[in-house]
């Protein structure tokens, strides 16, 4: 196998004056924006991949693009590596510090800067929590589609870095399909805007390049997101199968029939029993080899027609039982709509509805 040399920093033998760096950071973000006590640094030593841990030398908490730029310039001048961190929920260790590094945490960059409903876009700082975007616009009947399971705690900046997905990305695409533009601080501290407020931008697709670059190309400090109109109608179907193969074939057949469900989730027998052991929903048959949770969304007439077709396809593939839990939610006449639930919420909703039933 071939491994490549890269610009990664070599372990430095020179002594780094962390006190001097901390003083310079404090001039940018104030003393309260610099974390340097060992016990306070502990919480930053890992992200969602908790099996690897490394304490950073310093943590800084900027609030603005200009502050991020100034901090990165200091890192550049002292030639110390920096790692951006959002909410620290990432599961691949993207925000894991390395030895002698600075962690730039975006938690205080938590402002929604602009909501433009007419043009269906929202500008946020990177520390804004994914779910806040939907909360900010749901009253007007809009939502932000990418919905990682951690959406109530993960940050939009982290979603951009990892190009996060979620249940509804089957139909609506992953983060990169919902980012129109970015304000970036490059690794030398310079500020640049890529993309814009409209979808079709000429030139290189630098927005596309940056989304999913895992913090290796710089730090996004303002993010322009696309928001979508909430579906008029949403149905969820729960089908159980006596073989994983049959459930898998049903998935393929639904998509082959030209139906793209809002979400399509499968759980195997082991997982079903794990859920039942803990929360006792009595929704999931313990002897099923697999269950499918299929969410069908869209216009009411489309949802009605596709629901019938999906049910027929599941039955053709030997579904033992099909239920339509009373999770059917639609945009209310007042325009106050509910965002389609993501996987854990879909499950939770099913649990709740089954208990109510």
């Amino acid at each position: 196998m071939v491994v490549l040399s890269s610009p990664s920093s070599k372990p430095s033998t020179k002594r780094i004056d962390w006190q001097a760096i901390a003083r310079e950071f404090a001039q940018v973000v104030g003393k309260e924006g610099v974390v340097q006590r060992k016990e306070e640094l502990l919480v930053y030593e890992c992200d969602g991949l908790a099996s690897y841990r490394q304490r950073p030398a310093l943590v800084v908490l900027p609030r603005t693009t200009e502050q991020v730029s100034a901090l990165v310039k200091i890192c550049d001048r002292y030639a110390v590596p920096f790692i951006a961190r959002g909410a620290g929920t990432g599961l691949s260790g993207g925000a894991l510090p390395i030895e002698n590094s600075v962690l730039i945490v975006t938690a205080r960059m938590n402002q929604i800067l602009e909501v433009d409903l007419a043009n269906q876009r929202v500008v946020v700082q990177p520390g804004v929590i994914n779910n806040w975007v939907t909360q900010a616009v749901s009253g007007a009947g809009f939502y932000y589609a990418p919905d990682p399971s951690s959406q109530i705690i993960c940050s939009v900046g982290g979603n951009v870095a990892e190009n996060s997905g979620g249940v509804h990305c089957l139909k609506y695409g992953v983060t990169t399909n919902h980012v129109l533009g970015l304000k970036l601080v490059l690794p030398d501290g310079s500020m640049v805007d890529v993309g814009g407020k409209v979808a079709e931008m000429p030139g290189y697709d630098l927005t596309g390049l940056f989304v999913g670059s895992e913090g290796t190309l710089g730090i996004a400090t303002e993010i322009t997101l696309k928001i979508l109109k909430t579906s008029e109608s949403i149905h969820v179907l729960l089908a159980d199968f006596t073989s994983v193969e049959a459930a898998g074939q049903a998935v393929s057949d639904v998509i082959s029939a030209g139906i793209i469900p809002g979400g399509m989730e499968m759980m195997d027998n082991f997982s079903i029993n794990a859920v039942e052991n803990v929360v006792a929903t009595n929704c999931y048959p313990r002897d099923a080899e697999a269950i499918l949770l299929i969410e069908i969304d869209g216009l009411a007439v489309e949802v009605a027609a596709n629901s019938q077709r999906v049910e027929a396809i599941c039955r053709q593939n030997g579904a033992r039982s099909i239920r339509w839990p009373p999770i059917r939610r639609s945009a209310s006449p007042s325009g106050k709509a509910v965002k389609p639930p993501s996987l854990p919420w879909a499950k939770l909703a099913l649990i709740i509805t089954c208990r109510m039933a």
Partner: protein
Amino acid sequence: MGKISPDYYVQDGVIPRTKLQYVLREIEALSQKHGYRVANVFHAGDGNLHPLILFDNAIPGQLEQVEALGGDILKLCVAVGGSISGEHGIGADKRCYMPEMFTATDLETMVWVRQAFDPKGLANPEKMIPTPRTCGEAARAKTQDFPGVEQF
């Protein structure tokens, strides 16, 4: 899952939908071979698997074995024409598996892009792209490849 097993390790791979049945059978075989239970919960529609491998981190050596099983599942995903990451990213966890799905030229192209933005290599180094220092000669993610990183 916490009620069933003290710890779990979640992997993230993508496969073509049509290979679902085959891959699930193979994951079961790998699970038996390695001796760890694997629960499958996944975004079936887009072929994005999230196998949850159950283990006990208090027992020395289990984490490494579970990572090896996770690595075998990723290689299986690549072998059927899929990918080593659906939505979690590569980060520190999976960079040593990048050569499973990219050629040296592919990876070199990525390094060029990275260098164009970050010639000094200061922005999140040691992530995403495998290097001799981080992955050595073997495309295996092992904790000892993270110098200075405390292992739990």
